[in-house]
């Protein structure tokens, strides 16, 4: 139900349809064009007040665009939730493998665990993958006694390469 007053619209949103996080994200995306207020209403419902920053004429069009954005933010949430563990696994694997190659930290095992099989039938990643990620993260923590600078970025060149040739430089390469 929509009530119209001057340059302002007020409507209710069912949080069973649109998660609160999606409502907040959509509202944030519109802060360049509108003032948006979100307040709790009845159970599983929030009230959204929408006021155009520039022209009162804009408010209807903005409201339509806002509802489209709500759908897209809800979709983004689903994509993110379904793939979070897989993304964490890939990043953790990249971090561990880089440390092995650069040999800047002691105690990192050379053979990182093999990747898990993605379970085509499971909508979310299973417990085995979660254990895998935790093991990788534990390796990183175990390998770093200082904890504050796990990549050794604050260690000056001269200290890091004392007695070594320039060939021992970190693996980072510049673009040709």
């Amino acid at each position, binding site marked *: 139900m929509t009530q119209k007053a001057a340059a302002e619209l007020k409507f209710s949103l069912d949080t069973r349809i649109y998660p609160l996080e999606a409502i*907040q*994200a959509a509202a*944030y*995306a519109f*802060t*360049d064009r509108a003032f948006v207020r979100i307040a709790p209403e009845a159970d599983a419902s929030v009230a959204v007040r929408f006021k155009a920053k520039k022209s009162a004429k804009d408010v209807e*069009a903005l409201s*339509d*665009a806002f509802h*489209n*954005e709500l*759908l*897209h*933010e*809800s*979709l*983004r949430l*689903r*994509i*993110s939730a*379904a*793939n979070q563990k*897989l*993304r964490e*696994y*890939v*990043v953790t*694997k*990249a*971090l561990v*493998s*880089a440390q092995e190659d*650069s040999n*800047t930290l002691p105690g990192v095992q050379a053979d990182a665990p093999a*990747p898990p099989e*993605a379970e*085509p*039938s499971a*909508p*979310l990643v299973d417990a085995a993958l979660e254990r895998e990620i935790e093991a990788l993260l534990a390796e990183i923590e175990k390998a770093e006694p200082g904890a504050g*600078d796990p*990549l*050794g*970025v*604050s*260690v*000056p*060149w*001269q200290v*890091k390469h004392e007695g070594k*040739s*320039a060939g021992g*430089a*970190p*693996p*980072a*390469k*510049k*673009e*040709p």
Partner: protein
Amino acid sequence: MSESAVAVEPSSFDPVRTGFFRFRRLGDRYLITNDFGRYRVLTDAEFRAYVGGALDRSAPLYGTLAKDGFIRDQLDFEGLAAAWRARHRFLWSGPSLHSIAPSGPGRAGMSLETAAAVADRVFESPSPALSIEFVGRPLANWPAVRLILDRARAKAASSGKELTLGLADDPSRLGDAELAALLSAGAEFRAVLPAAGASRAKSLRRLKAIAAKLRKAAAGFTVEAVVSRGARAGLEALVDECAALGARGILLKDLSPLERASPAGRKAACSPEEFLATYRAALERVLRLNSRRAFAEETARAFLGAILNEGGADSASLRSPGGEGLGELAYDRDGAIYSSVEALELGRCGDDSFRLADSSAGGYRAAVSSPSVRALAVASCLDNQPACASCAYAAYHGVSPVQSYVEQGDILGRMPTNTRCAIHKGILDLLFEKLQDEKNEMIFRGWLRQKGTGRPYPRP
């Protein structure tokens, strides 16, 4: 973005087949991107089929998306981890871009003793490839520039590090002796043109005189021009002129937040919409010129490096976490070390929030270990930014906490009302639009292969 487009129903998403992606409307199509910098522009029907896991598995599109990590049950973990690592190699290398401002308005310049200390601090960075860029009217203190050039080259030779040198200043200040020294050191010159008027004409006259010498020495040079309200009208003619002089490219810049904050800056600054309209016309002019010879727009080239290179962005400002303090450092004439040129300029205005250390005390380790760098790292991590975490351009862009602090009073910034975000998003929209034409893509890839461009790009 088409506001009237019919949105995609979240319930249509297939969590089994569809991998992680970010998306954005591009006209009547959808751009999808992922953490590995891979992208694809899909028609509305293709996008809906992809989201719903209904793509034809025998179609070439499916194979491409699977190869690029978009299909959840076809992920190549080894390959994708390597791709992620390649795009984030800067995490292991420390600051590679070192901007040095050896002079400043109305006060004493950098002493030779400080210049020597600054050169030494630069080489403490663990990065195997270093770029030294002289900024802020450096030619006003040539002795310090000369000392740093010589010392840096000697240290590069002894350490085996790759070194690139650049100097940005008004060409009217560049004498023949300084030009010869820059050429001899292999330093690239970036001609910074005044906004408009008589001083720009004088600078262009001098640039014409030295361009012949630069061409003869086969030394690439670029031109930097600020896009202000007063300079919009003549921008396409300026593009033509710079190309005719033999420049490798032109860098079209918006005013910085600090420049915008002054009364004169408020009058001169374009709105994001004005800037983008002017930028589009200039970029299209640049693309037309490329039918005859390679001539790049440098802001576009920085973004294109992030989009088209497997290794991601060379520009420290297009990374997450951002480059301030982690990928770049800036050194003021008194030896103070700041997280970036913008932080240094802020320091000159009396706000030392991002002053990290001093070249003569503490040096590199103190600078990168400072609490300010930690704060900048957290604030510039896109996963911590509500609008950026889901932005389709997250893999090709970074936030600038210092610029957000200047413009919005908060290092985390508020992207929907952030000028830099609006302009950069508009530029990326334009680039992805142009990339749909294969001819343009060939030109863009040519820019990335140009000789003498192996240095971190200028800050967009």
